[in-house]
């Protein structure tokens, strides 16, 4: 194994970045979408600058940018499984509170919920998922697997619970189909998964058109 996995560094770094992003977004002087652009492009720039003075653009960097599920070590796999279980369990435990807070933070706070604590929790859970997914999907494509399943499910399902369950199923299916196709036709795994997601999104949009057209 020799080399330690980048995950041990990237998990704490991304978690801290997520909390900082949240704080910037709250301070209303910079809107959160601009804050995201600010942090993500600057950190990408720092990364590129550091690589160019050290190793240069090699396969490892390319793997990080576009992901490589085959480059994952056994340790990475165990870590990913552990993180996934932790995230799923925490999500179920705090499901009600996370719903109230994301839907209406002021209402939640007026009802005595410690909103700050839970928005931090959401940020950290998302960060963990992103770090784990980054190893498979790469920096450039990770946002798509976070966003696609939810958007896809929202075409057809109209309640939070159904959207959550459907997103889970959609993303697992897209992943499995994507990996199979990429193996079959020798295409890069990350991009195949995103393309499968796109196809499912189009199918769901068509279903929406048919079902809700009456």
């Amino acid at each position: 194994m020799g080399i330690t996995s980048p995950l041990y560094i990237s998990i704490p770094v991304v978690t801290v970045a997520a909390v900082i992003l949240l704080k910037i977004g709250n301070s209303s002087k910079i809107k959160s979408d601009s804050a995201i652009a600010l942090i993500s492009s600057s950190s990408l720039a720092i990364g590129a600058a550091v690589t160019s003075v050290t190793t240069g653009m090699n396969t490892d960097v390319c793997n990080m940018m576009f992901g490589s599920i085959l480059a994952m070590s056994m340790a990475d796999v165990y870590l990913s499984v552990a993180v996934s279980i932790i995230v799923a369990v925490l999500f179920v435990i705090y499901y009600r509170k996370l719903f109230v807070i994301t839907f209406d933070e002021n209402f939640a706070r007026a009802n005595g919920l410690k909103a700050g604590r839970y928005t931090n929790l959401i940020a950290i859970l998302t960060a963990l998922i992103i770090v784990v997914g980054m190893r498979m999907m790469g920096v450039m494509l990770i946002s798509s697997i976070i966003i696609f399943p939810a958007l896809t499910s929202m075409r057809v399902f109209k309640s939070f619970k159904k959207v959550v369950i459907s997103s889970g199923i959609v993303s697992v299916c897209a992943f499995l189909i994507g990996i199979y196709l990429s193996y079959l036709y020798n295409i890069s795994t990350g991009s195949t998964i995103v393309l499968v997601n796109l196809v499912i999104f189009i199918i769901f949009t068509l279903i929406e058109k048919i079902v809700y057209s009456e």
Partner: protein
Amino acid sequence: MEVLNIKNLCFSYPTKKNTLKHINLKIEEKTFNCIIGENGSGKSTLLKCILGLNKGYTGEIIKQNRIGYLPQKSEIQSNFPASIEEVVLSGTIADHIKSIFYTKEDKAKAEKIMKELKIYDIRKKCFADLSGGQQQRVLIARSLCATENLIILDEPTNGLDPRIARQIYELLDHLKKKDNITVLMVSHDIERALKYADNVIEIKEGKVVFKGKPSDYELGGAKK
């Protein structure tokens, strides 16, 4: 009996000193109260102090029970996948805050309130797909789930057309009469506030400059 008693409340934001200056206010039960005043006069700040969203005030706020709250509209809600049922049910969150799931009582409470507000038949619909008036009706239902007797609303008729706005006022009036709910709301619509409210409270530059019956307010206004 009063459901809310505010004694000598003062509050400053870090960037804006003396937003509220020595507010004294009693809200009697089973009354419809409207807070009016210009933008930036401190109306919403007062509500936020009452609800405990603004910390660090001086003075005293005595609350009898939990309060149901209807905040100003937020952007997220217009694109959020949630059914009416889920939104109303979420109002019961504080009843069993430790529990992982909603209890049977929570569900029964939400169902009763949805039936009363005539949104039970559309409970599976998506909140974001509703009209503005229907959305406010759902949020009123949610605030009723959160309280026994007092709801606080922050400009609930903002952006609604006049006919729908009237329906909201009528609904609140109905809740007051039938369910003994005390209503405290911030309103920009002075005309309607005067028509439906039992008490009008005018705030100007952080001070209560008028408190009393709508008829007295109109007289005072005529003198000016």
